[in-house]
């Protein structure tokens, strides 16, 4: 557990860099988190992040299949938005816990 500063705000993150309090999240923080992993967030990215945040709040199990069926982006598109980690990066930038999912 550590406190880091993103977008001028103190943010609690775990050892893998995932935010531990989803309510601290805002778009500026997301953009800075994404920049650390070399990704510039666009509106399309934010649509995915909002979807993940809403699903997480409802306590749903998150999988790339769920995102692929969300109507926002297909799985191929999801890989293009978040290269090298469609679920691990998107959930990180969404300020939610890393999904414990193998799919």
């Amino acid at each position, binding site marked *: 557990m550590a406190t880091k500063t993103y977008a001028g705000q103190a943010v609690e993150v775990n*050892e*893998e*860099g995932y935010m531990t309090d989803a309510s601290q999240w805002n778009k500026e923080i997301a953009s800075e988190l994404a920049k650390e992993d070399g990704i510039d967030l666009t509106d399309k990215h934010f649509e995915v992040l909002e979807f993940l945040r809403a699903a997480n709040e409802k306590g749903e*199990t998150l*999988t*790339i*299949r*769920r995102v*692929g069926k969300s109507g926002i982006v*297909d*799985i*191929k598109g*999801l*890989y293009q938005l978040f*290269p*090298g*980690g*469609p*679920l*691990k990066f998107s959930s990180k930038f969404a300020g939610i816990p890393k999904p414990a999912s*193998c*799919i």
Partner: protein
Amino acid sequence: MSTTNESPLKKVCIICAKGTIEDVYATLVMANGAVMEGMEAKVFFTFFGLDAITKKQMKRIKTATVGNPAMRAPGGLPFPTILGMIPGVEAGVSAMMKSQMYKLDIPPVDEFLEMITAGGGEIYACKLAMDMFKLEKEDLHEEVKGVLTIGDFYGKCGGDNTQIIFT
């Protein structure tokens, strides 16, 4: 972030030679898990594993109810092998396995193959087994990239931090 001297895995090459639900899905989950983590994944289906990528068979894969000592009835009750021999039992057990998986958002085989290739994974069929089972490229699902000899497949398994996994 914890520090470690290990260099991360970069590529997994998975060989699937069996056509049961558990062998096929173990292969698919490992391949999909690799691409989701940003690794390369190459999958080689051979012998009965070809059922998983053969259009006619891929929706019909089953779990063996005979010769499977880990097989138990729901609730953990013993499942005598002799029951597994009764016609329809294998189909029923397999349907139950699949329904449990779908509840966990594990997709059917064809969709799983599409998920893997969407992430850049590659699916291959074994030439020798194709010849043995008298199969043609047209009999295979569209996501299959090619029919290879094992030598050709090994040729794709090079590079540092690559592992070959046989299911």
